[in-house]
């Protein structure tokens, strides 16, 4: 039940909204607008000059940018499915009334609470060629010839990082899915049991369709998170080797603060393009999820 909203004098509302508005306008809305403004200017420390769409034209022909887009989109498309499908498996395992499910749920959630800096360093070590756990395990099971510097090889660096985000976020997805499973009306599942449905049929025909809205929500959330990814890459590979893990975010950062071009206009143009892309993806995906949910009822 929600309480009815009332309509009081503006004098009563303004004090509540003013601080948030100041923060929002000053440190969120203005920076967004300023970035868009930047993107059509050359922004040097002491000089700003209007350049129109020049940055965008340059961007169109910028191979590194397209490489970064490809990497980021790959990440954002692959990771959600890995995370959510493994999470679903784990959630079902815990749903099957195993001992210590409560503690396992809490334990599996832990990685997501860690800083990407910490996670990045730990996984750099795990991927270390000489003594990292990945290679150590391969050698132990007799697959030593597969051992390689996972983050140092162009072919494996991106997949290796996708493994890291999957490791980090699967527990989170699992907790949400488990909650959704527990929220299912027991009658529905019991009805399925009475219908002599096997476990597999019960799962695919009854349970998964019922939690589909949650699954879609999680996929969107994970997708959006990966579209923004920066910290992990910055700590582990800085986009290397040879741009094989460059993401849009790291590229923006490099062009703004690392390369000594000093122009903030060009990275702003990248950020603007990415902002538009991410927000339209979110809008479309949310709309699709909404529509899906409407069908449910």
């Amino acid at each position: 039940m929600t309480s009815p909203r009332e309509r009081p004098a503006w004098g009563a509302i303004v004090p509540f909204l003013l601080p948030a508005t100041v923060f929002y306008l000053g440190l969120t809305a203005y920076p967004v607008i300023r970035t868009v403004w930047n993107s059509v200017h050359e922004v040097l420390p002491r000089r700003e000059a209007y350049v129109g769409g020049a940055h965008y034209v340059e961007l169109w022909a910028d191979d590194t940018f397209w490489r970064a887009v490809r990497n980021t989109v790959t990440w954002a498309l692959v990771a959600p499915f890995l995370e959510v499908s493994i999470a679903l498996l784990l959630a079902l395992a815990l749903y099957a009334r195993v001992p210590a499910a409560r503690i396992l749920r809490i334990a599996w959630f832990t990685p997501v609470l860690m800083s990407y800096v910490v996670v990045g360093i730990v996984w750099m070590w795990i991927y270390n060629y000489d003594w990292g756990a990945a290679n150590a395990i391969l050698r132990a099971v007799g697959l030593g010839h597969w051992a390689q510097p996972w983050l140092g090889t162009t072919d494996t660096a991106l997949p290796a990082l996708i493994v890291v985000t999957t490791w980090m976020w699967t527990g989170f997805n699992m907790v949400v899915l488990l909650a959704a499973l527990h929220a299912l009306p027991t009658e529905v599942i019991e009805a399925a049991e009475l219908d002599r449905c096997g476990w597999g049929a019960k799962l695919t025909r009854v349970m998964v369709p019922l939690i589909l809205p949650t699954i879609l929500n999680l996929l969107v959330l994970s997708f959006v998170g990966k579209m923004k990814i920066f910290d992990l890459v910055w700590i582990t590979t800085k986009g290397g080797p040879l741009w094989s893990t460059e993401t849009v975010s790291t590229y923006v950062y490099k062009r703004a603060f690392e390369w000594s071009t000093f122009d903030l206009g060009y990275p702003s143009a990248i950020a603007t393009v990415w902002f538009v892309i991410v927000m339209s993806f979110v809008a479309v995906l949310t709309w699709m999820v909404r529509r899906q949910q409407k069908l449910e009822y």
Partner: protein
Amino acid sequence: MWGRVLARAAVMLVIVLWTMFAAGPFLWVATISLRTTSEFMAAPYALPETWRFDKFATAWTGSGYDTYFTNSILVVFSAVAIVTAVGAMAAHALARYRFPGNRLVYLLIFSTIVLPPQITVIALFQTLAKLGLYDTRVGLTLVYAAVQLPLTVYILESFFARIPADLFDAARIDGYSEWATFWKVAFPVAMPAIATVVILNTILLWNEFLYAVVLIADDARRTLPLGIQKFMGDQLEDYGMIATGLMIAIVPVVLIYAIFSEKLIQGMTAGAVK
């Protein structure tokens, strides 16, 4: 019968493997943090023979972790205090009052949650530089408060909306102004949700890296994630010491999580469950 047992075994196997996968890295770092680098290089996966807790003292005083830790505490706690107050006030107004644009404001805030940070970070750098707040803890604190504001308002709004309107009417009859009613009734009644956002924001900001790396330059003002990154850059090979630094960053999070696990899970998943 055998099928059942087999299925059960498969489930247990999945659970054990994932638990090892999820927890292994942390346990490994924990062991390294108590060993010297040479001990570690000799046997990377051995348990500590002598538990070298003194390494924490060394990291704390000798490698600047005291500074990083203090900076993190200062910035994170102030930002969380600010964002809680500012966010709760806004959430209350959005939940309780009907005014033109109410839903528009809400929608705007909601869409800001998914905003890619790159779209603001460059301009924030410019703005703070202009205001003389670049490379200051105050500047970072204000930015942090602004960054967490949308999520805070989003979570609190749905809670405030569930407070019965009668409670506010009673306070009005008891003679309290809207402002006093908020602080004396709405805010304390919303304590469970407030606690959730406080814990959630603390963890998220404690781990924050991008804004910090852009807006802080001087070593004396680095927060923990920056400090760790720098330490790793300086002492790339000193794994033992880096691990100790990592543990200094991890332990507070684990402690908070151990005490408030359900609240934290609730906060983290608030957006996803909807």
